[in-house]
């Protein structure tokens, strides 16, 4: 019997095995591939649920979490250990990751048109164009299966592995490994339709932008390891000596304490991964990927990983902070960046027309919420919003995928050339796609914080009351305005997509999707509503008496000292009621009469210059293009390539080569040819000449030889004789 602690190791592995099986063996078999991927995800889902149930029923989970560690790499005298841990935080994160991933896996089967014929013009690297089918004597177009179906499942499997690895890691190193594998998968999946130029660009943009954050994060990890000699969360955070050393030692940068510096560096990783300002630009472009990818990577899991990181390292980020005291530097940074991003992204979302882009900016905004909440010390509220957001945002993304899919069906059916993602081309989908409509409304209400029944209300209210009661009025007001805008753009989206009459023929012929897509939507909708009920605060008027406030108690165990029960002031509650309902009503009211797909946006008529700025996302991309990317390209081209590479390095190399040639020629013509060759040739020539000379003597005539011999003897005789005589 496997012990529970070793069972945890098995959670991340099935998707990895599935990835390898698909890539190596079954990549030609579409059906088999998705069964393998689904099996992997399902297995880790089952184990996750077993572990989750065990975790929530264990007493003292925070002090003695489930998990185990093994020696991994020898580092000098010590071993670098890796291990898995399930404590209250990773348990709740594991819960939503396991659920959303499984739902998205199932949904992907339908989204990629499994069971449909292959289109004649479909190419790997491009979205399927649809196939022609003859039925009842008529030819009509139907959606066609994705050409790279197996590849998709392979990538989301390895992605699921990385996310689970990250969640279950008990140390920063394996967390970082999971973090980077996800970055890599994100790159591949955003560029999944690599035949499209925009997708390629988006993939590169996402990869490079998040990399900027990752580099700082790696620096933080390296600094932490250098100072403490370990990367294990518990060994660092539960060791008062280490913590006080980190808090009280000054780092060489800006008079920050080491805890502050490392906190800021780690938070920069989060800025990249969770798409916070100013590194938020990659997330909207990442919508180029298939919608399940947007749901999984860019809503429910990978971007949550950034928030998860700051939740994980919160003891470090908040080192030296007490609920009454001033915020630490990393917390201040988080509060400012988070609150600003929440408002900033919400305003952009108001002016977007692409159904997925609205959600992308909404995701950025909601992540900003969590970061801001954590920045003001509302730890459980941030964790709570992370969980609820993952469910309702995954739901909304899958819902938007369902809308697009339905619209594509309509586009194929009518042959009309309209963008199936543009909300202005939709309208009236309520009756065409009822399941999508109701689930989308559930998600949308949760997102906008519809009071009492939706999960988003409870978590958002927690954050607002945390900000208000903590005395961070600026953060409170910013977040409240962002919440108002959130409700507004959600109502705008629902109104434009589902209400009113169809504005195009394609929308008229849109149809509901198969159960393989609608069932995951329904399950996620269920969570989008009820998951909030586990965290109804005790102080809430009326309902609070019946609530065990389970979430706050459970996740609150993560903090060393439980924060004092705060009084629930009516101000934040009223505020969240007003902004949610007011925003929803306003959004519906403004867009209720939007009739024509080519009509101007009502806001554009009202406040044109502002709308233009919002529609262009405050020109941040253009700003980056002009002041960062172009100078970088200029530098790369002119300085590095033309000057450094072409002139200096190539010049030096060519110079050396030319010098070598010269020297060689000099030696060749100066020494080798005249001296060495000359000597050899001269010897041979001399010998030949001498031979030629001597051969004349060799006449072959015996008598001449005899005469010469005689003459020689006479001469030699005379010489000897002369010597004899003279001596």
């Amino acid at each position, binding site marked *: 019997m496997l012990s529970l602690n070793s069972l945890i190791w098995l959670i991340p592995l099935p998707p990895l095995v599935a990835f390898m099986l698909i890539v190596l063996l079954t990549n030609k078999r579409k059906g088999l591939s998705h069964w393998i991927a689904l099996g992997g995800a399902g297995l880790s889902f089952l184990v996750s649920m077993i572990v989750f149930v065990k975790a929530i029923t264990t007493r003292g989970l925070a002090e003695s979490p489930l998990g185990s560690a093994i020696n991994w790499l020898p580092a000098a005298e010590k071993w670098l250990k890796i291990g898995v841990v399930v404590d209250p935080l990773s348990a709740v994160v594991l819960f939503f990751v396991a659920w959303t991933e499984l739902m998205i896996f199932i949904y992907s089967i339908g989204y990629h048109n499994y069971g449909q014929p292959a289109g004649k013009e479909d190419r790997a690297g491009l979205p399927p164009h649809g196939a022609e089918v003859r039925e009842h004597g008529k030819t009509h177009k139907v959606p066609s299966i994705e050409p790279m179906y197996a590849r998709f499942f392979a990538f989301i499997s390895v992605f699921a592995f990385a996310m689970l690895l990250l969640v279950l890691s008990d140390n920063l190193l394996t967390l970082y490994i999971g973090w980077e594998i996800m970055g890599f998968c994100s790159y591949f999946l955003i560029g999944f339709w690599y035949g499209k130029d925009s997708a390629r660009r988006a993939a590169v943009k996402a990869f490079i932008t998040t990399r900027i954050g990752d580099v700082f994060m790696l620096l933080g990890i390296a600094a932490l390891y250098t100072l403490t000699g370990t990367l294990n969360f518990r060994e660092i955070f539960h060791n008062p000596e280490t913590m006080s050393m980190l808090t009280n030692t000054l780092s060489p940068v800006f008079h920050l304490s080491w805890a502050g510096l490392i906190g800021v560096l780690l938070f920069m990783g989060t800025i990249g991964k969770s798409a916070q300002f100013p590194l938020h630009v990659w997330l909207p472009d990442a919508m180029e990927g298939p919608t399940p990818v947007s749901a999984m990577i860019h809503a429910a899991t990978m971007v949550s990983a950034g928030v998860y990181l700051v939740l994980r390292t919160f003891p470090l980020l908040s080192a030296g902070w007490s609920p009454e005291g001033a915020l630490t530097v990393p917390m201040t940074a988080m509060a400012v960046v988070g609150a600003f991003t929440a408002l900033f992204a919400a305003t952009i979302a108001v002016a977007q027309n692409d159904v997925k882009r609205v959600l992308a900016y909404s995701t950025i905004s909601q992540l900003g919420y969590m970061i801001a909440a954590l920045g003001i010390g509302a730890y459980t509220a941030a964790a709570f919003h992370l969980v609820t957001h993952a469910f309702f945002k995954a739901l909304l993304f899958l819902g938007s995928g369902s809308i697009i899919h339905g619209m594509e069906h309509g586009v194929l059916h009518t042959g009309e050339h309209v963008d199936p993602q543009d909300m202005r081309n939709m309208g009236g989908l309520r009756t065409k796609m009822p399941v999508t409509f109701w689930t989308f409304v559930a998600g949308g209400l949760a997102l906008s914080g519809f009071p009492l029944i939706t999960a988003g209300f409870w978590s958002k209210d927690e954050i607002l009351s945390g900000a208000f009661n903590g005395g961070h009025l600026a953060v409170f007001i910013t977040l409240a305005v962002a919440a108002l805008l959130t409700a507004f753009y959600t109502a705008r989206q629902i109104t434009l997509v589902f209400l009113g009459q169809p504005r195009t023929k394609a929308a008229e012929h849109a149809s509901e999707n198969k159960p393989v897509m609608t069932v995951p939507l329904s399950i996620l909708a269920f969570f989008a509503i009820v998951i909030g009920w586990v965290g109804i605060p005790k102080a809430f008027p009326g309902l609070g008496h019946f609530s065990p406030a389970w979430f706050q108690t459970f996740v609150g165990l993560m903090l060393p000292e439980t924060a004092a029960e705060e009084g629930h002031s009516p101000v934040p509650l009223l505020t969240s009621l007003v902004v949610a309902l007011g925003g929803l009503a306003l959004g519906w009211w403004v867009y209720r009469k939007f009739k024509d797909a080519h009509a101007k946006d009502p806001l554009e008529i009202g406040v044109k210059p502002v709308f233009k700025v919002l529609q262009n996302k405050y020109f941040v991309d253009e700003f980056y293009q002009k002041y960062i990317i172009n100078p970088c390209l200029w530098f790369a081209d002119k300085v590095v390539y033309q000057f450094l590479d072409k002139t200096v390095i190539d010049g030096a190399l060519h110079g050396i080569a030319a010098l070598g040639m010269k020297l060689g020629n000099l030696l060749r013509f100066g020494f080798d040819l005249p001296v060495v060759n000359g000597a050899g040739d001269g010897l041979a020539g001399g010998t030949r000449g001498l031979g030629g000379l001597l051969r004349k*003597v060799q006449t*072959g005539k*015996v008598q001449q030889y005899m005469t010469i011999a*005689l003459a020689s003897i006479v001469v030699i005789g005379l010489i000897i004789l002369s010597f004899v005589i003279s001596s």
Partner: protein
Amino acid sequence: MIPLSWFLILSAILFIIGLFAVITRKNSIAILLGIELMLNAANINIITFWRYLYAPSGNLDGIILALMVFVVAAAETAVGLGLILSVYRRRKTVVADDLDTLKG
């Protein structure tokens, strides 16, 4: 008694005649004849020195040496004539100047 030098002069004249024949005659056989003359001139020398210097003591070495020279001369003539005959069969000539295949 005839003085020693007369024999030596006779021997020298005979040797010169032989040498002259060897160097100047075209016919190979005549060259062989010249060689015979030179050998016999040497023999006269040998016998003469033996007779005047060693015979009184009863030493017979000189005669034996002369006999050896006869044997060698006979053998040499036999081989030489054989070669000349063989050459004549192939080349239909016995002129020494024509036999120059060893020319360099």
